[in-house]
């Protein structure tokens, strides 16, 4: 049995995509998918297709914008980039994520330490 891979939650996926675009700059859907897999070291299971509705949702909210361009190997590709509002959103979400993670971590630590 391969180790079970975590399903990607919607909110998490948003955060991952925003952070990816923040780190790497404008990127096409394939690039984002590769990056996600690379960073998660294949621990996250992601049907790469599900990325696209998520990208559209982020765009509709005005956090990312898209533009057609040409990829490294001379293919037509749609490039996504972070907007100003997206940057703000990333900061806010990262912060709330960290706070959440800290709470969970404390909780788990407490549970272990309990008699």
């Amino acid at each position, binding site marked *: 049995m391969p180790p079970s891979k975590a399903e990607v939650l919607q909110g998490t996926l948003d955060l991952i995509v925003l952070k990816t675009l923040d780190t790497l700059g404008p990127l096409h859907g*394939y690039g984002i*998918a590769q990056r996600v897999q690379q960073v998660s070291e294949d621990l996250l299971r992601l049907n*790469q*297709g599900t990325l*696209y509705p998520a990208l559209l*949702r982020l*765009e509709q*909210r005005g956090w990312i914008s898209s533009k057609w361009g040409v990829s490294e*190997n001379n293919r037509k590709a*749609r490039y996504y980039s972070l907007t100003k509002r997206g940057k703000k959103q990333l900061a806010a979400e990262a912060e709330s994520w960290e706070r959440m993670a800290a709470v969970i971590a404390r909780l788990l630590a407490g549970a272990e330490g309990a008699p």
Partner: protein
Amino acid sequence: MNILRSLAMRLGSMFRKRKLDADLDAELRAHLDALAEANIRRGMSPEEARFAARRAFGGFEQTKSLYRDQRGLPFLEALVQDLRFGLRMLAKSPGFSAVAILTLALGIGGNTAIFSYIDAWFIEPLPFPHPDRLVIFETQDKKHGWTSGGVTSAADFFDFQKQNTSFEQTVAWTVANFNLTSDGSPELVEGGRVSCNYFDALAAKPILGRTFTAEDDRSGAPHVVILSGGLWQGRYAGDPKVIGRSISIGGEAYTVVGVMPGTFQFPLMGVANLWTPLALTDKQRADRGNVWIPAFGRLKPDVTLEQARAETATFFAHLEKEFPQTNANLTWLVSSMTDRIRTEEGGPEVMICFAIVGLVLLIACANVANLMLARATSRTKEFAVRGALGATGRRLARQLLTESVLLFLLGGVGGLLFGLWGMRWIESQIPGHIRAYIVNYGHVDLDFTTLAFTVGITLLCGLIFGLAPAFGSSRLDVNRTLKEASSQASGSSQSARMRRIFVAAEIALAVVVLISATLLVKSFIISVRSSPGFNPANVMTAQLTLPKTKYTQDSQLRNFSEEALARIRSLPGVVSASVASYVPFGGFGQGIEFEVVGRPLQPGERQGAPFTAVSRDYFSTMQIGLVKGRFFDSTDAYGSSTSVVVSQTMAGQLWPDEDPIGKKLQLGEQRTVGTIVGVVNDVKIYHLRQRRGWHIYVPMTQFPSRNLAYAVRTAGDATTMATAIRDAIWSVDRNQPVSSAPMETLIATVDAGNRVVTRLMVFFGTLAMFLGVIGIYGVMAHLVSQKIHEIGIRMALGASPAQVMRMVIGQGLKLALIGVAVGALAALGATRSLSTMLYQVAPNDPPTFIGVAILFAGVAAAACYVPARRAARLDPLVALRYE
């Protein structure tokens, strides 16, 4: 912000679907290609690489579908889809659509038209500021329970005006006829005499000049007049310099001080072309015995109606002690003016019509729901296929619901058009003289409330009645339906039962409507056919009022009336001519108080009867029958002893066991003693539905009258004589306005309200019956087409065509009879509320009930006959093979 923005993007994307779809496709393919290339670089074969890429990517089409849902507004898209499909379905069966839309249009339109009147009467506030603070006063006898019908005595009014603390304003007013003699041909116009605060209390502002002052309202003050907008525009051609002008009314000079806007209307007064101050003399102001002045008041803002009533009660308890002779048992009834106006003209009639059209709409809806159910059953296959292709039950139900709401909306549009036409039609049926008594002159508009009502009932009915077929189809068993060989044998028994219930209910409702309508129509016909007590055919009337200023002496009045009568009598074509102080249906009559000699009245007790002074030939001209004694003759001359003729009912009630001839009455304030010389049959004077009443006639020679009503029986058509009669009167005095009308027109005008209601009843009653028939026909036709197989088997096994026919008609008739029985029972309860509007017809009139029941059974049988014959003529071989 975010929500709005994404909504806008989603909405926008719906209009560029093709381009966006192509983009998405390109993007996703690029992704797959890139994945595959990477796999090849890792050493896979091209085929393996593509396969792995697909796997990593997940469902290609699912992604696209998810993406599209995120991109657009799936709910809206489905709605548009449903609407487009719905329209296509409607266009596909134009017969069904036309019947359904027309049915709904008639139902909804009827409701719109009637509701516009409900709105104007019962919902819209009166067109005065703070109408809730306006109340009317009327004298009420606590002991005997009668009210005076909106009037009070002058002294009571002025005392109350002086002493009360509850009212901002108290206003007395009365109607009067004014004889305009200057500026063009003489014209008799209706108007009002009002206390000086009349316009202030109604918060009405003049468009020119001023309203009345307390100075104007004194007896003997210089005469002033305020014109209505209509009279000013008409007779005075909208002259802006009319203020200050002197006009002649009844021979006296009046100065115009103001002009009111044309929209100003006080429904209780009705027609008002001009107003003069009440200006009562001191003697009139001190009169406590005569109860004749209409009065109303405006409450102070902080005083409630209950407080005002309490104060009024205390005040009148006090008056009762002080003036027992006149005020014993009397008090004031203080009631809301809004309520009074709403019940005055046509209110109950409108409510009845509203109830009837409501029922008709229910019938129409049931009918359409039925048609839709029938269609839904014949579309079962279609729905099964859709279900098999992945449509959920909810999705199918939603589509059916959309279709039915669409159908109802189209019906609603038709209903609005029909309703607008209906509103104009009803308005055109209201006779001019009644209009002034109706809020906003009986004019109604498709205002916001009415529009909202129409849209509301349309959607409500669409949802409720659309749910039935939608509900049925959402529980479809796909497997079973698809497996069934015949497309005909389908249709769940549940839906069939629902349809039968609908039809029975529809017939029951139609029976209620038809019975109510028949009762109203029947009582209208009875009242129209009933004799008014005289023969109105070929009688022309001409009415005028002689002015006090010019005709000061009784002898002048006598001379005028006799001179004019002689000239009319000599006209060619006149069979006989007479003059009276009042003719039946001729407007406001006159009453007189009297006492039977030898039977003195108790203090505070009063006795009165309508009173008419007539010329000798009056009874013979009007063809009023003599019951006993004699008519007036040449012996009843001026100066001889007073003779009286009374009506049959009066004689019978006053002297049940005695001969009335020779009995004596004391008449009026002068207590003139008159001897009864004759008894004539009862005559209706106000309306055709009037009960038999008392009436006192006296000779005009002995009681000269300022109000003259000539009644002329002509050889031919009365209308052709109008001008000749008027000219004969004008040959005596050119300055007196004459209003002439055939007697039959006077009667018809008085009865106009009932006529409108009756026509509406005929229309809606017929409509209800047609809808009921269509309903039962539809169900039976559908039943036969569904049972063709069964009928084929029966015939193959030896059933004769006659037996088949009997079976089909029997099934239809059973439904109809259940409906008729339920309807008749419901009608027994419902028609009780009609009783006040019925004339000589009982609310449970057996012939009506039986007749309608038989009629319905008959038309139902006829409606079943067509499908039954089709069933009987089936060739069993064809029927068995029929799919």
